[in-house]
C-alpha cells in the first residue's frame, strides 16, 4: 500500500522531466511578466515625471515673476523713441488716427 502510494507520488524519469519543463516555463513566464511590468512602470514613471511633474524636491519658489522682471516688462510698453530735426522734405506725413 505504501509502495503504491509512493509510486503515485514519485513520478518516473519522464514525468519528472515534464514537471521540470513546466516549472522552467513558469519561471520564464514570471521573469517575462516581471520584466514587462518593470518596463511599463518605468515608461509610465518617466512619462509622468516629464509631463506632469509632481511636488518639487527643492525649496518652493513663489509663482510670481521677480519684481525686477515685471518692472522691466512693464516699462518696455511705454518707452520713448529717438527723434531729431528733419534733414530733408518728408516722404510721409503722420495724420490723426
Amino acid at each position, binding site marked *: 500500500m505504501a509502495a503504491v502510494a509512493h509510486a503515485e507520488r514519485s513520478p518516473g524519469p519522464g514525468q519528472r522531466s515534464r514537471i521540470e519543463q513546466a516549472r522552467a516555463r513558469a519561471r520564464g513566464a514570471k521573469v517575462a511578466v516581471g520584466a514587462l511590468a518593470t518596463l511599463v512602470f518605468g515608461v509610465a514613471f518617466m512619462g509622468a515625471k516629464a509631463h506632469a511633474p509632481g511636488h518639487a524636491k527643492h525649496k518652493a519658489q513663489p509663482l510670481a515673476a521677480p519684481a525686477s522682471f515685471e518692472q522691466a516688462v*512693464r516699462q*518696455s*510698453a*511705454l*518707452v*520713448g*523713441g*529717438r*527723434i*531729431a*530735426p*528733419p*534733414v*530733408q*522734405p*518728408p*516722404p*510721409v*506725413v*503722420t*495724420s*490723426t*488716427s
Partner: protein
Amino acid sequence: MTAVHRFRAMGCEVVLSRGDPVAVAAVFARWEGVFSRFLRDSELTRVNASPAWALHVSPLFARALRIALEAAADTGGLVDPTLGAALEAAGYDTDFSRLAGDGAPVGPAVPSRLGEVRLDGRILRRPPGLLLDLNGVVKSLAVDEAADALSSGGFVSAGGDLAARGPVDVGLPGGDAVRVVRGGLATSGVVSRRWRRGGREQHHLIDPRTGRPYRDPPWEQVTVSGASCLAADVAAKASFLLGEDGPAWLDEHGMPGRFVARGGDVVLNGAWHRDVAPEGVCT
C-alpha cells in the same frame, strides 16, 4: 529716390518704402480679418456675439488682447479694450465711411468693464454682451509687424501710425517735420474721425472715466515718439485723454510728445523739446 507704395487697409491709407507691398498688404489684411468690428466673420465679431462666458481664442487674438490689457494697466485704464459698447452708443457702429450726416441721439454712457475680462493663455473669460474693441492697439501692432520685414531705411505708415527701420523724415500736423531716428511715431486726435449724433459732435476717443467721447479736449492732435509704433500709439491716446496733464505724463515716461491745441498753438513736452526744438515754439 526710393519708391513709395500706397494702398488702403483698415480704413486708412497705408504708405511704405523699402518693402514688399504685397507682403505688407497681407499683414494688414490678416489683422483686419481678425479684429475688424465691421466684418461679420471676423474673430472679434464672433467673440463679441458669443453667448459663452469662456472662449478659446486664436493665438493672434490672445496676443493682441494681452497687449491691450497691458496697455490698459500701463495707462491707468485710459487705453481700454472694453469700450466697444461705448463706441457703438456714440454712434460708431458701422464703417467710418458710412457715418455721414447726423443720426439718432447717442445711447447711454457705457463705463469701462476692464475688471470683468480675464485671459488665461488662450482662454478668454468675460460676461456675454461685453463688447471688446482692440482698435487701440491693433493698427499699431500691424504697423510694427509690417515694419519688421522692411529693408534698412524703410518705413510703413497707416493713418497716424508709423514705424521706421532707420532714419526717416515725417511731416507733422501743422506743417512741421521731424526725423524719426528709431522706433515709431503716432498721432491721435479728434480732427478726422468725427461724426454727429443727436446734433452733437462725436469722436472715437472714448474717455473710460465717463463712458463717452472725451468732451472739450484741450488738444486737437497729439503726436508721440515711441520705441515702437505700439508704444507711441498707446501713449498718444493716453496723453490726449489726460488733457492738460498729457505733456507731463509723457515726460514721466521719457517719451517725446507734441501737442496741437485747439487754437493751433503747438506745445512740446520736455523730451520732445530736448531732441528737436524748432524756434519760437513754447514748451
